[in-house]
């Protein structure tokens, strides 16, 4: 087993009663990767992360963390973790809980550094029950990084954050990534996966259906999008004979998805349709993923 492998799964599977939450999975996450685990709610993302961290035991196969049993405190000492819907004692102050979590590690980050990375400097003395949803997420992030971890496991970390905070959070994750840290985060925001990940694992109904860098996933869907204003002149029979996969109208703008944009444009021009603000772009990651999963909840 490679020493620099953070997570290794060999046929790891999890069944809850009759529900197969994760089908047998073979996978390795190497040190330094930023991996987004993308899929709709109930796809098996949290189960995956729970097996990787030893919070759940696989019903078949094995999961290893830094080559160790994930429940081993030596393995956990190299990780930082943000989980969904966990709490901390409400009457404590931010610096108190941060100091407590720092005490679980031998070489923690200094408290000011933790609070500054998490963007909580102003809230050092605040009681936890006074924090907003987004500040709370930042507190959990602070607790995750206070041990100066080699690997971060973040289960839906940006839930409850506003757009601005979310973007700042992404840039902090990218900083950690460029500092050589491993990040595994689950999300159902395609934009989030695309913004930070070097590798995207798409999971649906407990099965990994894609595992590739964002660019490769996008290339996998060869669709191009031809979009323009002035759709009023466009009639259905105008596009019927063209190599078109899908047509969308939104706010007076028309988008045509096609594998052959040249043919579509030639067709439209030959019909003398006035195309304002014409744009031809590669399909987004969203287009790629919605095509693969059942699509529900992925946005």
């Amino acid at each position, binding site marked *: 087993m490679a020493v620099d492998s953070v997570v290794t799964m060999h046929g790891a599977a999890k069944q809850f009663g009759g529900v197969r939450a994760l089908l047998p999975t073979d996978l390795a996450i190497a040190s330094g990767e930023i991996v987004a685990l993308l899929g709709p709610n109930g796809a098996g993302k949290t189960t995956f992360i729970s097996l990787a961290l030893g919070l759940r035991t696989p019903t078949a196969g094995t999961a290893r963390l830094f080559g160790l049993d994930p429940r081993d405190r030596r393995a956990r000492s190299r990780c930082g973790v943000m989980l969904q819907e*966990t709490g901390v004692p409400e*009457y404590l102050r931010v610096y108190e809980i941060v100091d407590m979590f720092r005490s679980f590690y031998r070489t*923690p980050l200094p408290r000011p550094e933790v609070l500054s990375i998490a963007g909580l400097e102003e809230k050092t003395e605040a009681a936890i029950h006074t924090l907003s949803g987004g500040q709370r997420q930042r507190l959990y992030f602070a607790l995750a990084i206070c041990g100066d971890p080699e690997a971060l496991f973040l289960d839906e970390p940006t839930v409850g954050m506003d757009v601005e905070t979310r973007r700042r959070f992404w840039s902090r994750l990218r900083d950690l990534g460029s500092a050589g840290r491993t990040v595994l985060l689950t999300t159902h925001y395609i934009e989030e996966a695309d913004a930070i990940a070097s590798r995207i694992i798409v999971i649906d109904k407990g099965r990994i259906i894609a595992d590739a860098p964002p660019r490769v996933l996008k290339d996998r869907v060869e669709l191009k999008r031809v979009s323009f204003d002035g759709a009023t002149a466009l009639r259905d029979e105008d596009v019927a004979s063209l190599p078109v996969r899908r047509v969308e109208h939104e706010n007076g703008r028309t988008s045509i998805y096609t594998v052959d944009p040249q043919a579509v444009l030639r067709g439209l021009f030959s019909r003398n349709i006035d195309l304002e603000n014409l744009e031809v772009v590669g399909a987004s990651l969203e287009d790629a993923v919605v095509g693969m999963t059942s699509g529900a909840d992925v946005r």
Partner: protein
Amino acid sequence: MSTTGWERVGPLWPSILATARCEFMRLYRIPGFSIPIIAFPVMFYALFGLPWARQHINGVDVGDYLLASFGTYAVITVALFAFGVTVSNDRASKTTLLMRATPMSPLAYLGGKIIATLFFSFVAIVALIAFAFVTHGVDFEPLTWLGLTLRLLVGVFPFITLGFAVGYLAGPNSAIAILQLINLPMSFASGLFVAMPNMPAYVRSSATFLPAFHLGELAWGAIGAPVEPAFVSIAWLGGFTVVFAVIALRAYYREETKTFG
């Protein structure tokens, strides 16, 4: 880079102390916990002890006797609630899940709560003794104070394991009710509110099966009342500690399998 070393895991004692500090602060900041726990024993003592402080009961002053009784009640209440309520809250809010994902030792979780409980118990005893002293309810030698305090702290362990068991068996709201249903009748039937000699015979004979009675005996012994030998009290308290610990651990492992299986 080694994958087998403990070089990143925090040492045990600092993490126990850091946890103890947080546990104490969270108890201290819950007004529904800290105020009644300090004030009720003092209030009981003012109402039931002070007016008859110089009369005699069981061969000692009523003031002394009831100081030991309400001191016992105070530490039992601290231990039951400090453990029962915080453990059930930690489970309900999934704090335990988050802590499990860290390299925190279970000993730090347990040890931190024990130290916070002992410290809070100490504060409650000192508040009660100080009140009794300034109101001239007692005039003890310092050694007697020390003996009483130490005995109460040593004897609090069965209530720690009992609180832990309730914390693992009950939800956060039912835990408070269950703990009151245990605490008040047990304290009453153990002679902490009404002195044992004034109790009906059937209460006196059955009290021996209650842990609170044996902690009371330990405390009354410290102020010179005639009681069972201290080693008998300690043996009973040790036995109860083990029995409740077994129940608590069974509940703990049952939940482990359910939540982390």
